[in-house]
């Protein structure tokens, strides 16, 4: 990183002794400015101002000849400051800074006056517009005399990327980056990667099998030489900044040596628990697992994990540990402890996914009360041939349902729970309808508010489901009850709903109810957000830098987001977004360096009293308290140059490059010098 010249031999309070020689240029902009502002008068007034050596007017200052004037005057008249009165600095500040630099002086010895957008275009009185232009020119001339040379900062970028979350988003991004030759660290909280997608049976609208498209990618991650995969691990600390994040990862012990375990699963068979006894998280609790388990057969990495919460060895210490003895590679290791890894990366992609809505928050639908009310994810596991029922749809009493009701928008579009639309539920409900009919031949009713199928092939799928005979009932289901009113309702669950198309309240008796749960921010999203300094929307999804133009960037440079952590979305969008995040991260690190504007803030350690007032004000955590010197220090790499700390420093000990107090005070003085 190149330093910025905050001090220039004469100390930071200005270059005393240097003779200030200012060149002033006013642009006609054809007639855009000159038709209202008396540019000749502006040039004449400017010529009278202190330090102004040259004062010129020209038709188009931004044109090549216009810029050439500036460069030539710098050389011939030994100018060391330039002021141009023309259009908005948002339009041409960089143009003129370039000309100033080519002329041979520091590009920040330049100030622009906006007399077009803020002048000739918005006023009608020529005299008043000219007077305003002159005042603003006076301010710029006074200010530029106080400018100091500055340099854009250039920082080296570490070539590795950290990806947090090993769902389909994280996997996609990891493979993209690794294929481009970049080192990738993929950190996943669960024992296996795959995320929610690994739990699905088929994907809409093409009905291709999720495992068939996902597991090859999971294997590719495992085998990729550029990817370091840490499952059962969590990021615990993040320091540093774009180009150089220092990340601490906690690796939980799985009591299996990763290097020696080959995933033969002999140990699982050998466990003293002859039958699986404990709730299987991967199967949404529908199945059971042993204390030593693998989430599902194609898990990546293909390692077993011992759960110390249920394992007798840990619980009582009295187990003979047949798992340990049966393993001929001696991979079982009860003495394993938590490990901490520290890595340095140039960029981060956060892809921490979502959590399905907790249906117990809506007791009206009877989940937990009635055996035959299921969540969509449970049904998803049930229809999977490798799932807990081997693909059989059987109710908890062993019956095969003859009628099934799928209730949409459970925890979505609901003022009582979550207001947002989860985007995928309409489509996956249709998919489940298809799969359930295929498996059971049951009548399937969909209770929906309205169908949202805006995707490639989505509406066609909806039409197809209608053709297949899925019953559509428009109306938010009011409740699920076992209180029967007629013989045909006997032994069934009744979905009460106002059918808003038929315009009456109906009672639909069904054997099974499926709740189409919406998406919520993942558990732990808030801690992740704080660690990486990502903002979130009110609902808790991570906030992108710009909703249209920077959808995978965040307010923190070098931190990107992909997938459902940013908001509910389906697999195609997630994969596309993950690709975009990978491309953005690649563009950032492949360049090798980042360049930043120099208008950062800085603290003179001799001035700072260490009162800490500024520290909590920085949204980028760029200010830290140095325990050694007992003063505040600004990490220039994190500073984005808003100047909030400067305005707040009670002892005036923080300054901002290009927006120094004395520069702004001189502007105030000059715009008011004629009142």
């Amino acid at each position, binding site marked *: 990183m190149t330093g910025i010249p905050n001090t220039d031999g004469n100390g930071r309070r200005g270059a005393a002794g240097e003779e200030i020689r200012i060149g002033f240029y006013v642009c006609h902009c054809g007639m855009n400015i000159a038709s209202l502002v008396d540019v000749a008068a502006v040039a004449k007034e400017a010529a009278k101002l202190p330090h102004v050596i040259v004062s010129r007017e020209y038709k188009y200052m931004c044109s090549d000849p216009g810029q050439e004037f500036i460069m030539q005057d710098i050389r011939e008249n030994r100018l060391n400051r330039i002021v141009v009165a023309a259009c908005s*600095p948002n339009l041409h500040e960089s143009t003129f800074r370039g000309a100033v630099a080519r002329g041979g002086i520091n590009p920040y010895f330049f100030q622009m006056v906006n007399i077009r957008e*803020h002048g000739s275009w918005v006023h009608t009185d020529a005299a008043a517009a000219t007077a305003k232009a002159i005042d603003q020119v006076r301010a710029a001339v006074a200010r530029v005399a106080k400018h100091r040379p500055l340099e854009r900062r250039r920082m080296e970028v570490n070539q590795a990327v950290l990806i947090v979350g090993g769902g389909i988003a994280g996997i996609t991004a990891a493979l993209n980056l690794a294929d481009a030759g970049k080192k990738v660290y993929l950190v996943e909280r669960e024992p296996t990667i795959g995320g929610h997608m690994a739990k699905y049976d088929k994907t809409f609208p093409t009905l291709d099998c999720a495992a068939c498209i996902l597991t090859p990618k999971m294997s590719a991650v495992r085998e990729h030489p550029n990817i370091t995969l840490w499952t059962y691990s969590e990021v615990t600390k993040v320091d540093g900044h774009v180009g150089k994040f220092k990340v601490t990862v906690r690796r939980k012990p799985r009591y299996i040596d990763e290097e020696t375990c080959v995933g033969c699963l002999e140990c699982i068979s050998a466990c003293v628990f002859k039958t699986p006894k404990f709730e299987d998280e991967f199967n949404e609790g529908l199945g059971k697992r042993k204390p030593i388990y693998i989430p599902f057969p194609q898990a990546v990495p293909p390692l077993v994990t011992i759960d110390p919460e249920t394992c007798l060895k840990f619980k009582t210490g009295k187990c003979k540990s047949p798992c340990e003895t049966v393993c001929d590679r001696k991979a079982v290791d009860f003495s394993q402890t938590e490990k901490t890894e520290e890595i340095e990366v140039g960029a981060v992609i956060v892809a921490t996914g979502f959590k399905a809505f907790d249906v117990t928050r809506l007791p009206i639908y009877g989940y937990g009360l009635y055996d035959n009310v299921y969540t969509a994810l449970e049904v998803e596991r049930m229809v999977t041939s490798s799932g807990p029922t081997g693909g059989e749809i059987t109710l908890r009493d062993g019956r095969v349902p003859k009628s099934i009701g799928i209730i949409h928008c459970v925890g979505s579009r609901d003022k009582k729970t979550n207001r947002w639309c989860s985007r995928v539920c309409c489509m996956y409900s249709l998919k489940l309808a298809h799969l359930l009919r295929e498996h059971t031949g049951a009548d399937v009713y969909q209770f929906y508010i309205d169908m949202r199928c805006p995707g490639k092939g989505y509406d066609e799928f909806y039409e197809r489901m209608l053709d297949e005979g899925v019953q559509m009932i428009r109306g938010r289901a009011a409740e699920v009850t076992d209180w029967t009113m007629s013989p045909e309702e006997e032994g069934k669950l009744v979905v009460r709903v106002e059918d808003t198309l038929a315009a009456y309240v109906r009672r639909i008796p069904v054997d099974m109810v499926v709740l189409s749960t919406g998406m919520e921010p993942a558990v732990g999203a808030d801690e992740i957000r704080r660690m990486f300094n990502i903002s979130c929307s009110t609902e808790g999804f991570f906030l992108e830098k710009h909703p249209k133009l920077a959808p995978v960037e965040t307010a923190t440079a070098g931190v990107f987001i992909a997938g459902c952590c940013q908001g509910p979305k389906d697999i195609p969008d997630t994969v596309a977004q993950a690709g975009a995040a990978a491309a953005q991260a690649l563009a950032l690190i492949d360049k090798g360096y980042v360049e930043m504007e120099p208008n950062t803030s800085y603290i003179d350690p001799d001035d700072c009293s260490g009162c800490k007032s500024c520290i909590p004000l920085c949204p980028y955590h760029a200010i830290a308290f140095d325990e050694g010197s007992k003063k505040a220090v600004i990490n220039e790499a994190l500073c984005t140059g808003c100047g909030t700390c400067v305005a707040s420093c009670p002892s005036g000990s923080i300054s901002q490059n290009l927006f120094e107090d004395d520069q702004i005070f001189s502007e105030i003085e000059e715009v008011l010098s004629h009142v």
Partner: protein
Amino acid sequence: MSEAWEPRIVAFFCNWCTYTAADLAGVSRLKYAPNLRTIRVMCSGRVDPQFVLEAFARGADGVLIGGCHPGDCHYISGNYKCLRRFKMLRRLVRDMGIEEGRLRLEWIAASEGEKLKNVVNEMVAHVRALGPLRLNQKFAEWDEEMNQLEHAVGEAQKAKEPVHA
């Protein structure tokens, strides 16, 4: 100039929203009063209360601060810091005898060229109705009471004693 008083308003605009809104007003050729003198800062959070007081002390009849809407700050939360300072500063300024309407904070998004125009026109009209503040001139008036004495003392001293070389 003093014979035909025109309100003079100093504006501090954040670069990303309000300054850009003023650019948009220009591009849209909206017309508003020429009484504003704009100082560009990166964020409304950079607006030091000292700047506002300095502007009043140097003769501004009004001060307008423009920032991004809450939640839209380019720097996440600079505008909230501005809002908090503004709430206290307005009380202080009022306690010092300056009418509230002379100090204004407005959230003007980059897309709100029309709002910028309206705010400026409204504020100019309001300050015009309040009349001149011109503290710089008041300071001079207040200090006249000393000038008379300086003159008198000077005369008396001259009469009393010889001038030392």
